[in-house]
C-alpha cells in the first residue's frame, strides 16, 4: 500500500515537472499603464466648442496611434461649460478632484474663464488655454502671485488689433491704391463691440475714425439701415462692422439696398453664417481671422489637419477653434515629451521651449511673454478676404493665398 502511494507521488511529481518544462509558465499581468489625463472644458453646445473638442480628439487619437507619450497613452476628458461661469468653474474643480487630470486645456469665453481662474490657481496644475482673448483675463492671471503654470495660446484682444494695424500698414505699402485715411466703425453695443471700437481708435491713431453702435441681431436687433446711412454720409475709405455672425447677412443686404459700397468693406464677427461665401454680396468683403481653410494650400500641417479632420468626423472644420484644439493637444504632448516627465517645474520649462515651425492653424508657434504674462503663444491674426466663396489670406504675405480685390465691386456688378 505504502509502495503504491509512493509510486503515485513520484508519478505526479514527474508529470508536474514535465508540464512545467513543456508548457509556458503563467505570465503575471503587468499593472496597466496609467494614462496621461488631459482635462478640457469647452462650450459643447456651440460649434466652436464642439469642433475644438473634435480637434483635440483627433490629436489624441494620432498621438496614441503612434505609441503615446513617454510610453503612456493620452486620455482626454472633455466637460461642457455651457457658456456659464459657474458651470465652467465647477467643471475645473471636478476635473481636478474626481478625474485627477494632469493638465488643463481648452477654453472659449472670457467671462467663463474669469470664474475658472481662482480654481485653476488653487490647484496650480499646468494649464494651456486656447480661448479667452480678453485683456481682463490677462490682468486676472497676472495678478496671481504665481502664474508660471499658465500658458495662453490665443492672441489677446489688443494683440489681435495690433496685428491688424501691422497688417494694414503692410497692405497699404504693398498696394498703394488702397487708402485708409477715413474709417467708419459700426459696432454692436455690447462689450464685444464697444471694446473693439475703443481699441481700434487707440491703435489706428493716424486714421480719422468715426463710429456708431447698433443692436446685434443676436439681441433682437438687425436693423442696420440708420447706421449704414450715417456711414455712407461719412464717406469712409473703409467701413468696419464689429458684430456677431447673425449680423452678416443683414449688414450686406441693407448696405446694398441703400447703395453703400465703400472701397473697403470689412466685417469682424467671430464666425460667419453657413453659406455666407456663396452669396454674391459676400464677394470682396474683408475679414480678420486666426485661420482659413485655404491655408491647406500653403501649410502642410494645416493640410494634414484639414483632411484628417474630415476623414475622422465626416465634416469640414468650420471654425478656427477646430485646428486650435488640435494644436492645443499637440503642444502639450510636445512639452511632455521634451520634459520627459509630468513634474510641474521641468514640464513648464519644456513647454516654454516648444517651437512649431508650422501648425494646423497655419502659423508658427513659439512661447514668449505678452504685456502681463510670461507664456503667450500666438500673437497675431490674419487679414482675409472673401473671394469666390473662399476666405483667401491676404496678409501675412508669407502665407498669402490671393491678391486683394480692390476696390469693393459695385453692387450692380455682382
Amino acid at each position: 500500500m505504502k509502495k503504491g502511494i509512493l509510486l503515485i507521488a513520484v508519478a505526479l511529481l514527474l508529470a508536474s515537472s514535465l508540464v512545467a518544462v513543456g508548457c509556458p509558465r503563467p505570465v503575471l499581468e503587468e499593472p496597466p499603464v496609467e494614462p496621461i489625463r488631459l482635462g478640457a472644458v469647452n462650450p459643447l453646445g456651440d460649434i466652436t466648442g464642439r469642433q475644438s473638442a473634435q480637434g483635440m480628439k483627433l490629436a489624441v487619437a494620432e498621438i496614441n496611434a503612434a505609441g503615446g507619450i513617454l510610453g503612456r497613452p493620452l486620455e482626454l476628458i472633455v466637460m461642457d461649460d455651457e457658456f456659464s461661469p459657474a458651470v465652467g468653474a465647477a467643471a475645473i474643480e471636478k476635473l481636478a478632484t474626481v478625474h485627477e487630470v494632469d493638465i488643463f486645456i481648452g477654453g472659449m469665453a472670457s467671462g467663463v474663464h474669469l470664474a475658472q481662474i481662482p480654481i485653476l490657481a488653487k490647484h496650480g496644475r499646468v494649464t494651456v488655454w486656447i480661448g479667452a482673448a480678453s485683456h481682463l483675463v490677462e490682468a486676472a492671471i497676472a495678478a496671481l502671485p504665481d502664474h508660471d503654470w499658465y500658458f495662453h495660446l490665443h492672441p489677446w484682444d489688443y494683440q489681435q488689433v495690433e496685428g491688424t494695424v501691422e497688417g494694414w500698414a503692410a497692405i497699404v505699402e504693398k498696394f498703394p491704391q488702397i487708402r485708409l485715411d477715413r474709417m467708419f466703425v459700426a459696432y454692436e453695443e455690447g462689450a464685444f463691440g464697444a471694446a473693439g471700437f475703443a481699441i481700434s481708435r487707440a491703435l489706428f491713431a493716424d486714421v480719422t475714425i468715426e463710429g456708431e453702435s447698433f443692436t446685434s441681431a443676436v439681441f433682437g436687433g438687425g436693423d442696420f439701415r440708420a447706421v449704414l446711412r450715417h456711414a455712407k454720409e461719412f464717406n469712409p475709405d473703409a467701413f468696419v462692422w464689429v458684430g456677431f455672425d447673425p449680423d452678416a447677412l443683414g449688414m450686406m443686404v441693407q448696405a446694398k439696398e441703400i447703395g453703400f459700397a465703400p472701397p473697403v468693406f470689412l466685417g469682424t464677427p467671430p464666425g460667419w453664417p453657413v453659406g455666407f461665401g456663396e452669396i454674391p454680396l459676400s464677394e470682396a468683403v474683408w475679414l480678420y481671422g486666426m485661420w482659413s481653410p485655404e491655408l491647406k494650400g500653403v501649410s502642410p500641417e494645416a493640410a494634414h489637419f484639414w483632411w484628417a479632420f474630415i476623414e475622422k468626423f465626416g465634416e469640414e472644420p468650420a471654425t478656427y477653434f477646430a485646428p486650435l484644439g488640435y494644436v492645443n493637444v499637440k503642444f502639450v504632448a510636445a512639452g511632455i515629451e521634451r520634459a520627459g516627465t509630468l513634474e510641474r517645474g521641468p514640464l513648464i520649462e519644456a513647454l516654454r521651449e516648444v517651437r512649431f515651425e508650422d501648425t494646423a492653424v497655419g502659423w508658427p508657434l513659439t512661447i514668449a511673454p505678452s504685456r502681463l504674462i510670461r507664456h503667450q503663444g500666438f500673437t497675431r491674426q490674419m487679414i482675409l478676404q472673401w473671394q469666390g466663396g473662399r476666405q483667401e489670406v491676404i496678409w501675412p504675405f508669407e502665407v498669402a493665398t490671393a491678391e486683394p480685390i480692390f476696390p469693393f465691386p459695385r453692387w450692380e456688378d455682382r
Partner: protein
Amino acid sequence: MLAKLRQRDYQILIAFIIVAAILAFWRPHVLISGLQRGSLYVLIALPVGIIYGILGILNLAHGEFMMLGAFFAFSLVTLTGIDPLIAMLPAFPAMFVVGIVTYRLTIKHVVRAPLNQFLLTFGLAVMLAEMANLIWTTRPRIVWVPYAASSATIGPITFGTFEFVYVAAAAIVLVGMFLFLTRTRAGLAAMAVGQNPRGAKLVGIDVERTYMMIFSACLAVLGPIGALFLIRHAIFPEVGGPFSLRAVSIVAMAGFGNLPGILVWGIGLGLAEAFVRSFRGWGGWADIIFFGMIILVVFYRSYQRRVR
C-alpha cells in the same frame, strides 16, 4: 374694423398720422424703415394677442415657434431648392400640426393655471431652442434670394422695398383674423369662449376643441411668418427669444385682446425706434425708448384705474 378701435387708439392713430406726415417731409427714410420694422413686430405680435384674448395664455415660447417655422422653411429651401416664398405654403400646415401636438401634450393642462402657463411656455421656449441647437447647431443659417435686397430710389432717397411685404402681410393677417373672428361660426364661437368659457360650454360650444384650434391656427400663422423672416434674417436657435419679449410687450401696450391696438402700437414702436436711430450716436437709445414707452403706458393705465 376701425369702429372697433378704442377711443385711446383713435387718438394715438391720429397722432401717428400727423407724425408720419411730418416724417415724410423731414426724414422720409425714418417713415419707411419704421413702418417696415413696425409691421414685422405687428405680424409677430398678432397671434400672441389672439391666444391671450381667447385662451388667456401668454405664450412666452412664441418667438421660438416662429424660429421653428423659419427652420422648417429653411430646411425645405435647402433640401428642395424652392423659393422661401413658396416654402410659406407647407410651413402653414406643418406648424398647425406642431400646434395641435403642443396643445394636446402641454397647453391643455394649464389653460386655467396662470403661473403654470408662464412656467410651461418658458420651458417650451428653452426646449425648442435646445432642440434647434441639436438639429441645426448654433451656427446661423441664411438663404439668399436677390429680391431680399431690392431697392427703389425716389428723389434723393434710396430705400429697400422687400420689407413692404411685412406691411402687406401684417394687414392680411390682421384683416384675416378679424374676418375669421367676426364673420365665421368658428370665429364667433372662439370669441364666445374667450369671453365666457362656461357660458359657451352651456350653449353647446366645444370649448376644448375651440382652444386647440385657435392655438394651432396661431402657431400655423407663424410658419409663413418664419419663412418671410428667413428671407431677410439669419436664423439660429436663440433668434426667437427677443421677438417673444417684443411681441408680449406690444400686446401688453395695446391691451390684451385688442388687435387694432397691436397694429397701432407695433407700428408706433417701429417708428419711434427708427426715429431715435436716425440721429447719429443715439441708436443705443432705441431699446430704452421701446421699453420705456411700455413702462409709461403701464403706469398710465395703473394711474387711470386708481383715478376711477
